[in-house]
């Protein structure tokens, strides 16, 4: 009986293993991804609050000129330690179109916490027109929409080369990046040392900036992550105890047969 259970698990593991190595080969850059330690990996992981704040600053000051995070609402910032007043002030810096009013006119008003993050461009064509024809994708789900998303975005942001290697002709307006599929990317290196001046005084090295903005984007993609992991522990402990009891009961009931 034990043996069959064991082999059941071995079978399951095999199926899982297959699907793991069976993961589709993706078009990749020329360098293998370096993996980072992220504060939110592991069963008890949480997003580092200070990094989230800095990440929001990087997104707002650097990326938001080109990229939207349209699935995130300003009110969501209250889930990661922003005070309501802070969020109101932050949102009010942006203008949104609303209406029609009683006269049938559209008007603009300052954003409120219930609004989603205001997008930099009115539509896709406007975004392309300002970016040499390339489209800066929405970043709300970026870390889930790429394999090993967080590591990938970090590597992408820090993986630029000023000169393309010998023998590679960059197209007009493209930059060389070790991790972007095909290595030619239409996004100029967005960050450098001291690209931002952190409100909390942290030294703004390129790596630090990349780490912080990736933390922010990982939260934007999985805002439920902390609650999920917290609840998961409780559910699994409950199930382990329950299953243990069920096993004991099963043995007791079956005892007269053996």
């Amino acid at each position, binding site marked *: 009986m034990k043996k069959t259970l064991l082999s059941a698990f071995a079978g399951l593991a095999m199926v899982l293993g297959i699907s793991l190595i069976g993961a589709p080969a993706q078009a990749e850059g020329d360098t293998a991804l370096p993996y980072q330690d992220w504060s939110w990996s592991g069963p008890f992981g949480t997003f580092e609050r200070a990094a989230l704040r800095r990440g929001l600053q990087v997104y707002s000051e650097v990326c938001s000129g080109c990229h939207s995070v349209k699935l995130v609402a300003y009110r969501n910032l209250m889930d990661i330690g922003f005070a309501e007043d802070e969020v109101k002030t932050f949102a009010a810096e942006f203008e949104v179109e609303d209406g029609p009013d009683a006269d049938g006119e559209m008007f603009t008003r300052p954003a409120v916490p219930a609004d989603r993050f205001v997008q930099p461009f009115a539509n896709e064509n406007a975004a392309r027109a300002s970016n040499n024809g390339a489209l800066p994708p929405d970043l709300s789900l970026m870390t889930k929409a790429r394999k090993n*998303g967080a590591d990938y975005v970090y590597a992408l942001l820090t993986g630029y080369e000023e000169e393309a290697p010998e023998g590679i002709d960059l197209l007009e307006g493209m930059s060389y990046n070790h991790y972007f599929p095909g290595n030619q990317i239409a996004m100029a290196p967005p960050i450098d040392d001291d690209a931002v001046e952190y409100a909390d005084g942290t030294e703004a090295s390129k790596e630090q900036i990349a780490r912080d903005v990736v933390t922010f984007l990982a939260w934007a993609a999985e805002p439920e992550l902390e609650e999920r992991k917290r609840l998961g522990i409780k559910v699994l402990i409950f199930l382990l105890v329950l299953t243990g009891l069920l096993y004991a009961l099963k043995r007791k009931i079956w005892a007269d047969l053996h």
Partner: protein
Amino acid sequence: MASKFMENPVIKWVEYRLPIFSFIDHSVGSGYPTPRNLNYWWNFGSLAGVALVIMIASGIVLAMSYTAHVDYAFESVERIMRDVNYGWLIRYIHMNGGSMFFIVVYIHLFRGMYYGSYKAPREIVWIMGVLILLAMMATAFMGYVLPWGQMSFWGATVITNLFSAIPLVGDAIVTWLWGGFSVDNPTLNRFYAFHYLLPFVIFALVFIHLWALHVHRSNNPLGVEAKAPEDSIPFHPYYTMKDLFGMGVFMIIFMGFVFYAPNFFGEPDNYIKANPLVTPPHIVPEWYFLPFYAILRAFTADFFMYWPISWLMSAKLAGVIAMFASILLLLVLPWLDRSKVRSAKFRPIYKQFFWIFFLDCLVLGYIGAKPAEGSFIIIGQLATFYYFFHLIILIPLIGILERPRPIPESISAAVTK
């Protein structure tokens, strides 16, 4: 059944008018004798039932917040993930539940093959099982289209396009399936309608599956029928308890994925909204379709299984037929297998080929996930050949030629010595 319970006046009143309590008792209660020697592989039938119920329950809750429109589907799923209370939990349960359901049913199916559960008099039990599998596949395929991500869209495009291989009417059929000239809003709407309907069809099929099962009752690891009373034990409390324990183990694994690796079985590309203008570099179906996808793609112009029929049809059509045949063949397995002995325990040759076949299916799954290039093509073609060779040639041949080991007289004689 516990007679105290049956003497309760309310119970008696109901039972006299609707004999539901004796029905339950004869189905899963103490009034249902079950072989005493079932091993843990027999847990997977009840687990499949649990998975089906979980899928229907979580699916209905999702439907309350989902919008089946190409402009809103992706966003409505993200609303469920972000704004609906515990929406992320419901969605991750439904997403991973699909994979769990297939793992459980595949194990259930291989169990049936190993122990010869498909043989007389359980052919109809087996056939209903295969029909359940087909209905599950249709359901899962259409469900995967609903979030309207890149893989949803391109998977649907690739698979529906297969029907264009049918001569003469192929293109018309595809247009009819789509409700237009590409996978678009009408396609999404009808897929949603079917995705909601089919699980209830599956439910009905499971009912028939179990109805037939209850006539001749479960097979068992020895493959000999339970005859004397000592061969059986009442389903309740023995197997109700054992199934409950199995459910606990199942839920631990299932919830482990839901809470700690919810996107393990998923494709990153499906978190990008569907875009008909951008084709993803590698279009792959969900993992549970991979072996069949490998069979489909094995049929190229230079595949040796295609040569003999190349004058008759295109390689694409041959691939489509082979893919469907790979499942439909299972319907006639009870007649392909000529051996009277059920359990592989007493079939030394069959047992070895069973495991080779199992490995072959894993290889097909692996190849299905790989791009069709280089040695993957050859391996996929050999594995495809072996799949059919096993079912059509080896199974009948082994059934005739093999000399089975002596079968025990009865279950109780074998297990209580």
